């Protein structure tokens, strides 16, 4: 909304006051005196308004410039001043909401956002940003509601679809997220990140083949996309295409040599594929970099056991138990390792621990194998 329109609204408000006075039935002299007073007051107010009119645009511009360079603290300061000058300034409110959102003053952003959304209900940006405020405050239900409102106000906005999908993804609402990402990609087919996220949404709705396509597209659009090969590898592994998964994990590893998560996943995949020697190397490195990763320790022990090295398998399996005592699997592998080593008594104890822990675990087989969507 322009400044001129804003001032126009002020004038109308005053005109209304005059009309009200005209209806009071005072004498002509009294009326004239009062009219002169009102006119004088109007002149003063107009002068003040003209003063605001001159001060507000530079503040708005300063705020905008600050946002453009990512200095949201400075932007917030400028918009605060602007809003003090003109509390009903839409530009000031928008700027302040955005600045507060970015600097993390979420409580204030929420208050401004709520009022602004009510005051300017047709502005699509306001519910968009308020939705993001809610999201940052972990109130995803409200975030989704606002983002959907923004989406309905302006369906042509890539950002709204993308952000809504992001919130839905974080809430594990993969199908809905996929729908929004598909809309976003229709608007901008070259958005590599959206393809990655759509791949993740497909992955989690059992559409791994489509996920593979999305990750491949993302990597074509941006070969340097962070975690691009990781995601593609993950999708291949879900399809049981271990060889391709391993190749992609290896590509990811070239870009992040010491990433323990990538090392672990590569090792895990190699265990599945029977490439135990390589798996052991990667898992050893993963456990060295991240000694707290019980899964990596477990897989290392398992790979060693599968390779026939029961004795060497025991320490990492014990470590996995130490890190996650409630996980039955390391006890199972340790029992089998000890059994192979002839330590039947301890093996039996581990089998018993395994059985006891299993009873406390959620069921996994049969119909329980499929995750609830």
């Amino acid at each position, binding site marked *: 909304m322009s400044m001129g329109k804003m001032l126009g609204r002020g004038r109308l408000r005053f005109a209304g006051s005059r009309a009200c006075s005209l209806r009071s039935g005072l004498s002509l002299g009294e009326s004239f005196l009062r009219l002169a007073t009102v006119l004088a007051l109007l002149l003063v107010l107009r002068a003040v308004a003209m003063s605001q009119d001159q001060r507000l645009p530079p503040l708005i511009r300063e705020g*905008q410039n600050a*946002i453009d360079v*990512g200095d949201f603290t400075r932007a917030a300061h400028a918009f605060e001043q602007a809003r003090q000058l003109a509390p009903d300034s839409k530009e000031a409110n928008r*700027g302040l909401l*955005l600045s507060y959102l970015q600097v993390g003053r979420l409580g204030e952003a929420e208050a401004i956002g709520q009022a602004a959304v009510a005051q300017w209900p047709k502005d699509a*940006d306001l519910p968009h*940003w308020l939705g*993001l405020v809610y*999201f*940052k405050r*972990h109130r*995803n239900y409200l975030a989704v509601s606002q983002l959907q409102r923004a989406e309905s106000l302006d369906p042509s906005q*890539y*950002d709204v679809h*993308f952000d809504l999908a*992001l919130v839905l*993804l*974080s809430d594990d609402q993969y199908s809905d997220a996929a729908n929004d990402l598909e809309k976003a990609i229709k608007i901008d087919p070259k958005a590599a*990140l959206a393809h990655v*996220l759509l791949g*993740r949404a497909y*992955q989690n*709705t*059992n*559409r*791994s*083949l489509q996920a593979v396509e999305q990750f491949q597209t993302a990597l074509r659009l941006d070969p340097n996309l*962070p*975690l691009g090969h990781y*995601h593609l590898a*993950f999708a291949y592994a*879900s*399809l*049981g295409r*271990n060889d391709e998964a391993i190749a992609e994990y290896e590509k990811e590893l070239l870009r992040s040599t010491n990433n323990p*998560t990538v090392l*672990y996943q590569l090792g*895990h995949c190699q*265990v*599945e*594929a*029977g490439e135990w020697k390589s798996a052991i190397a990667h898992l050893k490195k993963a456990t060295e970099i991240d000694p707290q990763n019980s*899964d990596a320790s*477990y897989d290392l022990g398992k790979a060693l056991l599968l390779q026939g090295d029961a004795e060497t398998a025991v320490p990492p399996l014990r470590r996995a138990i130490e890190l996650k005592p409630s996980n039955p*699997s390391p006890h*199972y592998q340790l029992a*089998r390792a000890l059994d*192979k080593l002839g330590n039947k008594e301890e*093996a039996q104890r581990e089998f018993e621990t*395994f059985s006891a822990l*299993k009873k406390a675990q959620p*069921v*996994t*087989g049969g*119909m*329980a*194998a*499929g995750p*609830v*969507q």
Partner: protein
Amino acid sequence: MMLPRSGLNWMLVCVLVGGALSLPDFAFPQHTSSTREHAPFTASRSQTKAGISFADVTRAAGIDFHLTCGGPEKLYIMESMCGGIAVFDYDNDGWMDIFLVNGSTLEDMKAGKCHPSKLYHNNHDGTFTDVTAKSGINHCGWGFGVAVGDYDNDGNEDLYITYLDGAVLYRNNGDGTFTDVTAKAGVGNLGRWGTSAAFGDYDNDGYLDLYVANYVDLDLNHLPEFGQGPFCQYRGIAVSCGPRGLKGARDRLYHNNGDGTFTDVTEKLNIDPGSYYGLGLMWLDYDLDGCLDLYVADDSTPSMLYHGDCKGGFTEVGAQAGVAYSGDGREQAGMGIDSADYDNDGWPDIAKANFSDDTNNLYHNDHTGEFTDLAGPSNFGPVSIPFLGYGVKFLDLDNDGWQDILVADGHVNPQVDQHSFGVAYAERPLLFHNLKNGKFEEIGTRSGAAMSRRYVGRGAATADFFNDGQQDLLVSVLDGPPLLLRNTTRPKGHWLRIKTVGVRSNHDGFGARVQLKAGGLTQSAEVRANASFESASDPRLHFGLGSASQVESIVVHWPSGIVDRIGLQAADRQLIIEEGKGIVSAPQPKPAPPATGKMPSLRN
């Protein structure tokens, strides 16, 4: 005024929000030993071996059976578990006949309306004739599984059929008729819902004993209501209840007394004390100690491996042996099982089909009494993730001397088709070709049109129905006709078939171990009919010989301890080997002609 592209860049979110999205959950999806994200129903991407193919000859062969198993919505668990099939030579004419178990519906059960099981006689010309009426096999009930074995050693194969509320033993009279001897034999499994059953002589007394896998203790008057309760959900949608949440039914082991009667030794031998949900089962001698052991696949509970002590006792060693759980110690929903020496190392390995969202198992025999699940490294497991496997059978598709695998698939909940879960109700069978290096290649979609289609598969059996030296397939299909799939692989390679006749051992020779050397390869196999899911296969041992036109040696280790050694033999024929005598006959029946000429199957 615009925000930078996208209000919240997803990588920044992790930093800005500080917890709304955590890296391990979102940016870094992870497969761990205990979690797995799920794959869709996919077509095979394999580059298949040319030449392996099967033709659907069901209609041309005159098989007109329709399996009835509850209503189309599958509101109750028993409506998904039918499908028993038996391949056996009931009239000893040297040709494999077919018995198909039928189910029922709740309404028809209550109304006393029967859905007859059917016996088909092999006409030796590629066709079969329905001889059910003459056979006297007429029990009216909701049938599931079937076992074949000559329990009275009279030279005729008998039938044992499991029902929703018991079981029936039919004695083969040797004249094309059968007599219900259940009551006399004492194997009625009364009031129990039996699934698979299997004959095997666990105490080597020369008589076949009988194991019956029981599933759920179901009260038909108080059936669990569809979709009501935590165990009536699959991925959040309402489905039939169970087996979890329902009381399991304890399996039964019947010892053959040798006089036409059996004794229930379940409690005495501490069989299935946990009353797990029994489905697939087979007798095998996994440690080659000359005594039969027993492997039972349980649904949603640990599978059981009973090690026979050669004295008539058992010790359950499933967990220690590594076959009770997945390779990571997870319970699985075991369905069908089979055993063969897929890597030709002389020791029997085990294949097990499981529920969808899980991999099938290929338990490699480590020669130490333990197994290692090599489903992943062998490529047998990963491709099976979206498939719900039932019947599983080893067979040599192309007579190359290496055991391949068939898995019949089909989901239990038709409701999955209304959702995008990546699993489907009807699924194509999986066909794994042995690459001779410990790995398999899934070639189903390129092994003939019939193999590419989707079915709700259940039981699976192998046989050389046409006596042409190739192993064919019979698969039961829920609420539909079965699939008789003729092996039309070319070139077919040389072969040898062995029929065992026990004398001191049981007449079928079940449990006999045969080693055969040909073309520089030593193959081992154990005589067995009952395995897979609720099914019985051709008990004759089939050896593919590849390019070898003769067999260098055959050694038969009988359950009695007798060993028969046989020298050089020509290929491409059947040998009948009698215990202690060696080869007693080498008939060469004329193969049946192709049965696809005059009556082409509509499926093709």
